């Protein structure tokens, strides 16, 4: 429920040290993974999971801060990948420069897209994000002369041929980790800033935020463009690693939904939530594809996982587990810290209980539904 900045003022020295230690352990785990991985396949799964972590963290710039759920972020990762690949092929520019340029191109494209889609909220926004992926899929499939169409696009390797496959995986693992670190640092910086405060105000109540003087539209747009930029970089890096792009897999709503699932599962309000989600979901995706790749059964597994997350842990796995633990603990006698949402939930629960006995009206519940 609470983000890093909420607890910052009350943080003691011990907690700070514990956090630093946790960070060091996390970094050590990530850095030592390639040498611990038993074979190149596991290493490549590690790269995929890292790539998912980059995408989920990038998604969380919009989803976590503003509460706008985009199911279509695959449009930006796909565009980033294609921009990088096409730049390398057609201009012969340095691949890393191409990747950066691709990110900037996508960020520039995200400005008009954001202006159009951020005008509407909630459901319409999600619909627009889905529509964007479907358009791009159509365009990239039909425009064969430029994008390679359904035959796909082969991208030359950024390292010279003497670098073998496992070494290549290792290098890309570290590159993804570096990109992830930059994205996390940016998220953390925004989270602590006045800008981040404004974004979170939009998430809680956009109308109130606006009436308090937050320039909501501009803030949303900036967060949206930053998110698209990092997503495109993630897509570009993936394209350079994988070396092959196909519109069906690049512009897929499934990829976009993985980003949402990972972020929600890990917790969209916390810095490392999407990373945690990416490790869990990324591993599950690879496992299910490996086991049930021939049938469509992995879709069922992912669908059920998403449904469970949405129904039972919309705040993420950590709050869900801590709530479960709290349920078995004796109730504290002192005043408990509660968020507005918890209080509303409690009130609603009480209202519903009386509702069951009298079969009368429960205005509080419908009120909230109607005013959203």
């Amino acid at each position, binding site marked *: 429920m609470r983000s890093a900045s909420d607890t910052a003022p009350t943080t003691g020295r011990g907690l700070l040290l514990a956090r630093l230690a946790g960070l060091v352990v996390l970094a050590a785990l990530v850095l030592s993974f390639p040498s611990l991985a038993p074979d190149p396949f596991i290493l490549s799964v590690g790269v995929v999971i890292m790539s998912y972590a980059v995408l989920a963290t990038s998604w969380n710039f919009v989803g976590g801060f503003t509460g706008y*759920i985009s199911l279509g972020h695959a449009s930006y990762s796909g565009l980033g990948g294609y921009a990088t690949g096409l730049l390398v092929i057609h201009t012969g520019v340095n691949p890393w420069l191409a990747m950066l340029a691709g990110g900037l191109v996508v960020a520039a494209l995200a400005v008009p897209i954001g202006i159009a889609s951020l005008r509407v909220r909630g*459901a319409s926004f999600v619909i627009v994000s*889905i529509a964007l992926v479907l*358009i791009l899929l159509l365009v990239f499939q039909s425009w064969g002369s430029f994008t390679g169409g359904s035959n796909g696009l082969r991208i030359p390797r950024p390292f010279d041929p003497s670098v073998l496959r496992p070494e290549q995986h290792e290098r890309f693992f570290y590159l993804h980790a570096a990109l992830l670190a930059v994205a996390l640092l940016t998220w953390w910086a925004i989270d602590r800033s006045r800008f981040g405060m404004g974004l979170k105000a939009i998430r809680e109540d956009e109308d109130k935020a606006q009436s308090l003087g937050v320039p909501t539209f501009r803030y949303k747009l900036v967060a949206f463009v930053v998110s698209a930029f990092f997503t495109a970089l993630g897509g570009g890096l993936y394209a350079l690693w994988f070396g092959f792009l196909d519109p069906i897999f690049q512009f897929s709503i499934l990829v976009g939904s993985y980003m949402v699932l990972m972020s929600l599962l890990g917790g969209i309000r916390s810095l490392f939530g999407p990373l945690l989600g990416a490790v869990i979901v990324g591993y599950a995706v690879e496992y299910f594809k490996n086991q049930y790749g021939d049938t469509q059964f*992995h879709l069922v597994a*992912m669908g059920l996982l998403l*449904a469970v997350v*949405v129904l039972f842990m919309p705040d993420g796995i950590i709050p869900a587990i801590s709530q479960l633990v709290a349920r078995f603990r004796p109730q504290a006698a002192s005043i408990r810290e509660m968020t507005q949402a918890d209080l509303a939930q409690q009130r609603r629960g009480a209202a519903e209980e009386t509702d069951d006995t009298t079969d009368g009206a429960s205005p509080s519940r419908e009120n909230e539904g*109607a005013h959203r």
Partner: protein
Amino acid sequence: MSLLLQSIVLGVLLGGLYALLAAGLTLYFGVMRVVMIAHSAFLILAAYLAWYFTTSTGLDPLLSLVVTVPLFFGIGVLMQRLLLSRLRPATLTMMSVLLTFSIALVIEGMLGFVFTGTQRRIRLDYGAASFEVFGANVAVVKLIAFALAAVSLLGLYVLLKKTQFGQALRATIQHPEAARLVGINTDRVAGYGFGLGLATAAIGGTALALDSTIYPSLHWHWIGPLMAIIVVGGLGSIPGAAIAALVLGLGQSLLQIPLGTTWAQTFFYAALFLTLMVRPQGFFGGRLAQRF
């Protein structure tokens, strides 16, 4: 000239089917504020059931409606009561999108698992039959699909306008709190409304199965146009959705002459983005649609 007329006839027939499918989406949105991404997945499910029914019994696929319509109605009621009503009201709209998306994934996965990814098509005696009207060729199956859509939309209209249940449903859509005050059990009505929406998917899916090749991932192909229709028409407005469906279906059909099939599909998305730029609440949506 005859090509133009042909396109217009095809466009109207297609638009009628779109209108039926979009009516279901509008119902869900009206009664629950839910954007039902899984609608097109249920459409494909109904199409598969019709195909399975015909291949295993040899009877006309239209007869499968006797089973699928009540079945889908029941599934809709259960879905609303057991799943969607559990979501927190504060985040209902967003989370319902994700929840119905997950249902769509499960349906697609199960279809692939049970019927494999092979493309299927119903063989009909009258499958290739057609007749001419002023030089335009009208396929019988397309006409049947249109007639199904027209009859169900008319039935829906009569149900909503003339019956007591329809009155209760409309009251629930317009003002749930006031509806409860006059003694309407809005929870039950919402469940039935949801079931009604899903029943339209059973009819639409069967109509679809008559003249198209079906495969599990086909629903992605439908979800975009349907969503574009309800946004252009204004979320929650049934007449808006119907008019938008006809206009967009006709537009798509006409654009197929100069642009070809694939690019003509982008017309829906162009209309969607244009609508958002000019009128974010859609062309027939009221104050309500603006917030979503």
